[in-house]
């Protein structure tokens, strides 16, 4: 396991999200009301689009291109046309810093 610092808490007010590059991975990191900081893969599984350029809708993100939705909590599809979930990453907050934990393989490639 490998914990990687990605942002400061103050970088991401509630209700906002941001694209974060970690190695060759691109994450969509969001600050969700009542659920804190969450991180998923930034690439929409339906088409090659950046989810962080879309909208936060409740605890989901809506893709800007075709409106597919994915849960920040589980990665599951919450709105068609996508049908494949996105990967969810463990997020921790320590003091003013947000960390994402990758498994060994991901860390090695990051």
């Amino acid at each position: 396991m490998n914990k990687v610092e990605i942002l400061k808490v103050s970088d991401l007010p509630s209700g906002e999200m941001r694209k974060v590059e970690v190695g060759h991975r691109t994450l969509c990191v969001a600050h969700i009301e009542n659920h804190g900081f969450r991180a998923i893969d930034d690439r929409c599984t339906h088409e090659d689009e950046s989810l962080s350029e879309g909208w936060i809708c409740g605890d989901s993100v809506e893709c800007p291109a075709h409106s597919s939705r994915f849960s920040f909590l589980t990665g599951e599809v919450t709105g068609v046309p996508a049908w494949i979930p996105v990967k969810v990453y463990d997020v921790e907050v320590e003091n003013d810093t947000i960390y994402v934990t990758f498994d060994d393989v991901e860390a090695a490639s990051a």
Partner: protein
Amino acid sequence: MDTAPQAPQSKCPVSRVTIDTLDTMQTVLRSKAVEENADVSADNYICPSALAEINVREFQQGNLAMSNGDVHRQRRRLLNSLVRPEQLVRFREDIILPSVDRWMGRAVKRNEEGAFGCDLAGVVELIFLEFAAKIIGIEGVESEEGMARLRGCALPIFGGLSAAHFEDREAVTTAGIEAKKVFVEEFYRPSLEHTRRQLQRLAAGELTEDDVPLNLLQMIATQAHETYADEDVGIKEAILFFVATTGTSVQAVLSTVEYLLDWFEKYPADRACIEDMEFVSNALQEALRLRAPFVPFLTRLAVDDLDAGDVQLKAGDEVQAWVARAGRDRAIFGEDANEFNPRREIPEGISRYGLAFATGAHQCLGLRAVLGNDGKSGSHLKLVQGLFRAGIRRDPKLQAQTLPLKASDDPRDQIPTYISFPVILDNWSARA
């Protein structure tokens, strides 16, 4: 792949490339090497003609479907707000289902034998015309008189937009232009003015946001995208919505009903499955896979070379994507791909509706309106369910009529466009 010989006047050395397998079509439609192009869509690219030029100028050039790159992305993002989940619920509950009650209530009559019946094609057209009007923001269509006037525009405008697919292109184009004039003068401009006044009253605090539901004309009135400053673009956008919302929805519902009637005759035990929204959704998606988009092919222009496996495109090539043929691809959907089967096993990574909504940047905006946010709660599905609850069957005394498209020898291209679909409703009640 089939590369047709060039026409004498062709823009040398481009080719017309036909694709009809699902894998290749996905690769091509998702590639940035191909774009939408009004001249290609109107068959004005390889074989230019005065009629095709009119088709481009009057109906295609400048609408969302024919935009590409950043402009398309910006406009698409804007218009996506019309099919957000809360909007889909509003469409279903506040517009389509009340409209079903209203128009079915007016159209269903007792026949000589005392059975309740109607021309389903006509009624479903009215329902989706009202839906189209509301999503655009067109006023004055809830009365029978207003709707009759709008309905008079619908088929000719569909013909005008899709004239390249019809045999008598001159007559279709002429009728389309006349209908467009009526649409613009009697509906588009007055409704846009009404929208502007509503927005002024909203800004003045005389109306609330609930009084002024989101629609296309609001975006045009506020020039939410800079291209909407041009009235011609706004008109063509409204026409695109008008045709896309009405024509394909009507044919999708009628085809689903037709296929399900045959299916239930073959498998009577499945009649109870009409209460299962996943089954209904599967049925509608099967009908779409086999027949949508209810024109023989979509077009694209290659703007760069592309290696799509069994097809090599060169920049400048015209692409014809025969979507319904791809939906019947045996390599993907099995040996019975030509058959309707709502219980079909679908390979992972493939949509049951095939490429009925296309794919890539230009995937149809209406997908979510048809299927619903969860894929099984869309308005179209509820309508199909309601018709079977009302005991729908074909009228044994009247034949359905279809529109003549260009002839094709390939049985996969025999896709009916219904202009009448007489039915009997054995359990009819206004709330069925």
